[in-house]
């Protein structure tokens, strides 16, 4: 068991010509953590990872491993190893030689080398594959060889650059579980880069959500999903039901008073002290639908625009009388759909679930997020 490495990234900036890919980010990853960097393409997560690995030199800033500054160290002398997106297994070497490559560079003696390679292959469940060449392996098997090749060197930190991107969905889910189990078993720090929010949410201890070279929020998966700090984070993870509102600061109970067109709502979560034009969000599973005519705070009338059967849940899209479209989600408990298309309802946003956000101006990519 190797003790995990602590990585610190201080004021890191990377410029490619006039364009800055990374705008001065600060991250701290304690040892033994599964840390993910999540964001759309071009947000700077891969560039940051490559700087930690040593393949790019930062324009400004420092990278520290266990307190030691390794910004100037070339990649072959850093005590970190990388698993690449396309595996980068040496095609002219077989599985054994691939895994043994790093050990041979360290001049490890023969019997110990054989033992460690055998252990690494057993760890990824590929014992018996030593003589095969990479071209004879499936995608999942190649991925595991790449993992074994990196882990056999017992690095302090393992860097993974979207390693599951090239695999089909079922294999991806299986490997997600295996990777997480592996990390807990080996105990070292994993720094994982992905654009798939489900992947990040399932595996990570903490997630850094990035956009346009800046870190929007760093928190545990639960916080990032339930308590997004900015509009971008809310929109990028899951469905956000963003509503344009006018905030008027906090009231006596600490709830933010927001105005959605003609309706006064109370939001208990988020930046409750903010005032001015901003956005409010609520997760689909927290919205309650009540029959038309129900009264109480935070209720807005609307009509069911569409009812979708998802198998394990119902998705009801409601058009509020103010014009917004709200997505709601109900678990399938075996009963019929609660409301039919065209029914008039009152939408209840529980104050506890309604969140006022800070708009940093970052925009999530406009793809269909249904």
């Amino acid at each position, binding site marked *: 068991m190797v003790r995990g490495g602590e990585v610190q990234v201080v004021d890191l900036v990377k410029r490619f010509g006039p364009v800055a890919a990374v705008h001065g980010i600060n991250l701290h990853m304690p040892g033994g953590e599964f840390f993910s960097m999540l964001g759309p393409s071009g947000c700077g997560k891969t560039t940051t990872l490559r700087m930690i690995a040593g393949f790019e030199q930062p324009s400004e800033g420092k990278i520290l491993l266990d307190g030691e500054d390794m910004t100037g160290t070339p*990649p*072959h002398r850093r005590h970190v190893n*990388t698993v690449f997106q396309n595996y980068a297994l040496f*095609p*002219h070497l077989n599985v054994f030689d691939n895994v043994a490559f*790093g050990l041979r*560079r360290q001049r490890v003696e023969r019997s110990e080398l054989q033992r460690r390679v055998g252990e690494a292959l057993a760890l990824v469940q590929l014992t018996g594959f030593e003589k095969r060449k990479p071209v004879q392996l499936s995608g999942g098997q190649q991925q595991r060889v790449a993992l074994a090749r990196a882990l056999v060197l017992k690095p302090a930190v393992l860097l993974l650059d979207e390693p599951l991107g090239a695999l089909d969905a079922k294999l991806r889910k299986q490997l997600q579980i295996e990777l997480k189990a592996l990390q807990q078993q080996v105990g070292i720090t994993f720094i994982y880069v992905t654009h798939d929010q489900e992947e990040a949410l399932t595996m990570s201890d903490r997630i850094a959500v990035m956009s346009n070279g800046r870190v929007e929020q760093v928190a545990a998966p639960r916080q990032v999903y339930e308590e997004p700090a900015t509009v971008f984070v809310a929109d990028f993870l899951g469905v956000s039901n963003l509503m344009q509102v006018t905030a008027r600061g906090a009231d006596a109970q600490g709830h933010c008073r927001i105005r959605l067109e003609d309706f006064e709502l109370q939001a208990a979560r988020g930046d409750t002290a903010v005032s001015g034009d901003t956005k409010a969000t609520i997760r689909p599973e927290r919205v309650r639908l009540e029959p038309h005519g129900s009264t109480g705070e935070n209720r807005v009338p609307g009509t069911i625009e569409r009812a979708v059967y998802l198998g394990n849940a119902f998705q009801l899209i409601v058009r509020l009388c103010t014009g917004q479209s709200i997505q709601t989600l109900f678990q399938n408990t075996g009963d019929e759909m609660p409301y039919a298309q065209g029914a008039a309802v009152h939408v209840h946003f529980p104050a506890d679930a309604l969140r006022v956000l800070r708009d940093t101006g970052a925009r999530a990519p406009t793809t269909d997020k249904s």
Partner: protein
Amino acid sequence: MTATSASLALAGNRSVLRRVRDWLGNPWGRPRFLVLVTWAYIVWSIVPVLIAIQFSFNAGRSLTAWQGLSLTRWYWGDPVDSVWADPTLQAALLQSLKLAGLDMLIATPLGVLLALGLARWRGYLAEASNLLMLFPLVTPEIVMGVSLSLVFLYLFDFIEPSTTAQVLGHVTFSLSYVVVIVRGRLFSIGRQYEEAAADLGATPWETLWLVLLPLLLPAILSSLMIVFAISIDDFVISQWLSCGADCDTIPIRIYSATRAAPLPSINALAAIMVYFTIGALLIAYFLFRFLTRGERAAGKAGRSVVADMGGFDM
């Protein structure tokens, strides 16, 4: 327009010209038109060579009238005029092979290193150097020949026109070919294997030796082959840097013989040149297949991973 032709048109019958065009085009298989054109070109370019080789087996002394088959007369049979008997022809053969061999051994390693350096060098000077590398390829050979001989006459006058000068001349223009070939392969390989090797603790030297060179093997073999073929074929530069009869290569000898009274032994000499070139090609090909034998997946007939990176499609 009669009733029959109108009904034919209605039946969708195509004109003869249209049917020939469709048959040639063949949308479901190999396009027959392209195949025809390719074969026509191959025949047009190879038939003259075949005829020349055919006349090296001529029983008589004519280069144009077939006088019967003699397999060995001009190769080693004739005691006076055959390639084996005539010392000048043998000297030319040896000189050609010597130049080609030295050119291969010098230009290829230098070219590979040059390509590696150019590929890794970023910046404006790198762009300029990349362009400069192409100059020998586009410069007319006569210009190259004259300028090289001037260089050896005035600048490096300690080098007489000799085999040394010829080797230097050959290496100079062969380098560009090697660089272009190797650089192309480097580009399609990408930086991933180098990064992986560095990540695993390999120093830049180890990365070069253990990862890059094995992956560049097809390009290196192609380069060796191309350099051999170019060098053995070269006329202008060899002649301009020649010291006289001792430095004559096969092309020079063929040229001077053709102006005098040529015998089929010249054809035999040329044919030997062709055999050597084909031999080099075959050796390179089988060497490549042998060295990459582990990389072919079972069932994927013939193509290794390294070849898939565009190695041997020259």
